[in-house]
């Protein structure tokens, strides 16, 4: 990394499932393929794997990952890198599982490393509005 500022997305979901079950969903390759993308993940530290989608003209559909941290049923972290139209993304995805009193699981996702610079940068909340406004400007010119 060259020291530029980065941004992080955070999500929290309370799921009515035990942590062991949620963990399976996050680490079992076949289950992952059904909700996230086709993959060859193996839940071991250092494992290098890929998520794959059918390619588009602008993207080969591949996300390169490496397991950075793995604490069964508690934390899973892997790098998430891809490239679209010459624009490179090198980020980190971290899943954290916390049991809830009712037997469910709090699932937290932190996706970090998004560049904070560029024409569409501007903070997680401003990002969407700014992008849509910028798209609107481009469209006025094109249509």
């Amino acid at each position, binding site marked *: 990394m060259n020291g530029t500022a980065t941004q992080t997305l955070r999500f929290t*979901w309370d799921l009515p499932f035990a942590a062991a079950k949620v963990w399976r*969903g996050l680490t079992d390759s076949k289950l992952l393929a*059904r909700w996230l993308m086709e993959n060859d993940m193996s839940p071991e530290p250092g494992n290098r794997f890929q998520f794959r*989608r059918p390619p588009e*003209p602008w*993207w080969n559909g591949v996300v390169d990952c490496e397991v950075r941290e793995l604490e069964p049923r508690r934390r899973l972290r892997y790098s998430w890198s891809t490239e679209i*139209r010459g624009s490179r993304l090198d980020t980190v995805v971290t899943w954290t599982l916390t049991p809830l009193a009712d037997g469910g699981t709090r699932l937290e996702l932190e*996706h970090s490393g*998004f560049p904070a610079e560029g024409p569409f940068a501007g903070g997680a909340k401003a990002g969407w509005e700014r992008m849509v406004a910028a*798209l609107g400007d481009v469209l006025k010119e094109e249509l």
Partner: protein
Amino acid sequence: MQRQDAVFRALADPSRRAIYERLSRGEAPVKALVAGSGISQPAVSQHLAKLREAGLVSERREGRHAYYRAEPDAVMPLLDWLAHYQAFWPERVERLKTLLKEMDE
């Protein structure tokens, strides 16, 4: 490039953008979209049809009810990363929830 054009055209309309943005925060039936939008149901339905044509929105039927959700993969080439993943992860985790629920049954 045809598909990209369809996506651009679909998002050119501010009301459609607003509907898409609402759906990127979570699935909703037509009623909820009408309530939040200040435009008529036929207009909302027409916007949804254009968004579906462009692959930006998908429909799920449960009996007589239809629910709409954003398909963030469709706008991947047009977005900054942050906005794309802002919609991507909630949509994917919805699928995870459905899958885990099926595992119970």
